[in-house]
């Protein structure tokens, strides 16, 4: 029988997300997928599984969950309060979820998008090659209480690992490459753009993030006369009021507002995760520097599997300590620790 994940309660913006649906730009559909794709990779690393598997994305608020079979989960992205039958669970870690136990995930403490991964992935039917909800395109619906989601088959990995991600919840400097319309902004405007401190606005979702600022509006020289042109994720669109909007996973495929540049893909998780009010600045980098930054970030993501560490449990937390066999693992203090028994 297929294992299921039951949602007993759900925050207002839970959706199934994976790496999205590439290949449909000519039909007006952007790729979509997880707002913080690094969090997907981290969950996959913690569970030792393929990063293309689907997880539950939770914007701002989690929910309560139960599995019909023993399984293992991982929690990544925005740090949320999490409990298993009342006992606190560490974030950025994997945990055993016994059948029938109640996993409760509360509000985001730092960041915006938290992720609940499950061994085998969420196994809803593929729709146009992916499972990701794409709200602006009308694909999928927000997850609500009472939903039962099929869990993919596969070996159950070991639980009890954690990783320590670099901070991506606190804003900071976003690296930007010049793009097809950057030259429509004069050098003075580009310079002012780099010197201005921006704050993430309340108006932020999976389509776009508005950046607020106290400076004069940023304007293109021919802002209203631009023919509608392709948009890519990370584009910084200057809207009619002169404020930048960073276009995110569910943005439209084309648009008529000028774009001053494009945020590097590896910096987009920081845009997605910051809470409202978090400060950002922009800095133009050369294409060559951008390449180096992206390749470095990708190598780091690929190496996540080697960055996970076992959780060390406090013996006081182990209720049935006396049932553990503690002696047989003792080693001879005089032995060379780098020579393993059984080596030829």
């Amino acid at each position, binding site marked *: 029988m297929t294992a299921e994940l039951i949602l007993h309660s759900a925050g207002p913006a839970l959706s199934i997300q994976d790496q999205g649906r590439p290949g449909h730009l000519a039909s*007006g559909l952007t790729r979509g997928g997880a707002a913080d794709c690094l969090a997907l990779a981290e969950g996959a690393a913690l569970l030792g599984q393929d990063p293309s598997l689907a997880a539950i994305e939770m914007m701002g608020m989690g929910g309560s969950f139960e599995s019909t079979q023993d399984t293992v989960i991982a929690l990544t992205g925005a740090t949320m309060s999490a409990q298993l039958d009342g006992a606190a669970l560490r974030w950025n870690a994997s945990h055993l979820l016994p059948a029938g136990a109640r996993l409760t995930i509360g509000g985001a403490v730092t960041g915006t998008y938290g992720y609940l991964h499950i061994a085998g992935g969420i196994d809803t039917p593929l729709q146009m090659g992916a499972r990701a909800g794409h709200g602006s395109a009308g694909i999928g619906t927000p997850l609500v209480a009472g939903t039962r989601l099929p869990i993919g088959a596969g070996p159950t990995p070991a639980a009890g690992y954690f990783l320590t991600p670099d901070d991506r919840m606190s804003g900071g400097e976003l690296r930007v490459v010049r793009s097809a319309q950057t030259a429509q902004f004069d050098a003075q405007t580009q310079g002012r753009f780099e010197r201005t401190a921006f704050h993430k606005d309340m108006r932020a979702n999976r389509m776009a993030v508005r950046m607020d600022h106290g400076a004069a509006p940023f304007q293109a020289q021919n802002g209203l006369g631009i023919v509608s042109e*392709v948009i890519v994720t990370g584009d910084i669109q200057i809207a009619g009021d002169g404020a930048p909007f960073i276009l995110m996973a569910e943005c439209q495929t084309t648009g008529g507002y000028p774009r001053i540049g494009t945020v590097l893909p590896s910096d987009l998780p920081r845009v997605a995760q910051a809470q409202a009010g978090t400060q950002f600045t922009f800095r133009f980098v050369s294409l060559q520097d951008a390449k180096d930054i992206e390749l470095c970030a990708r190598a780091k993501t690929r190496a996540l599997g080697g960055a996970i560490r076992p959780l060390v449990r406090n013996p006081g937390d182990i209720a049935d300590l006396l049932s553990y066999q503690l002696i047989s693992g003792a080693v001879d203090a005089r032995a060379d620790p780098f020579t393993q028994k059984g080596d030829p």
Partner: protein
Amino acid sequence: MTFSPKIATVGMAGLLVTFGDKLSEPANRAALAFRAAVNAQGWKEVSETTTSLVSAFVLCDLAAVDIDVMQGRLADLLASRDWYAAPLPAGRSLWHVPTVYGTDLAPQLEEAAALAGLDPDAAIAQLSSARVRVLTIGFAPGQPYMGELPANWDLPRQEGLTRSVPGGALITAIRQLIIFTAASPTGWRHIGQTAFRTFRPDASAPFALAPGDELIFPSVPRAEVLRLRASDQTGDGGADREALP
């Protein structure tokens, strides 16, 4: 043609080849033909291609490819022929989409007709015989921007937004038509209503139209569109499709 095509990088996502600084039929045709030619090259670095009104976008991972090499290939392809004189690519369709003009289902026909200098009957005669091309698809999945209508249809967008027009609505501004994918606010005028669904996420072919397809919107009675809406299971809303040579 005084505009010379330009190649530019777009983010880290790919290279954009632009054939004009404003919409024109030759620039749109050049973009469609150039995209088809890029697809025919089979370059392994290219993950996807698309067109907007006057440009072709070639997606390739700029962090991984040699950008100068890709730009050189595109420049060579650009120089290989006059793209503004190129024929449209093969594999396109001609659609006839039954449409009711005016009535309560499309309440802005009379207003738009007046702006186009016509009485409603003359406007319906002109609109229902116009043959338009899908210039690009965007804003919503599968949603076509079609043109160009005769010059008297160069209507500005209305100042206020219509709060919501339904999916299948035929709306117009700036010599173009759009069939709406889903209910949405708009500044364009709602002149016709079809039972055509541009995006069918559960179908094996989710997108009905492709850039370069051509469409005619023959006038049918209001009752016919209501009947099609109620009975059609395919999404075609009674439309006929024929392959263009």
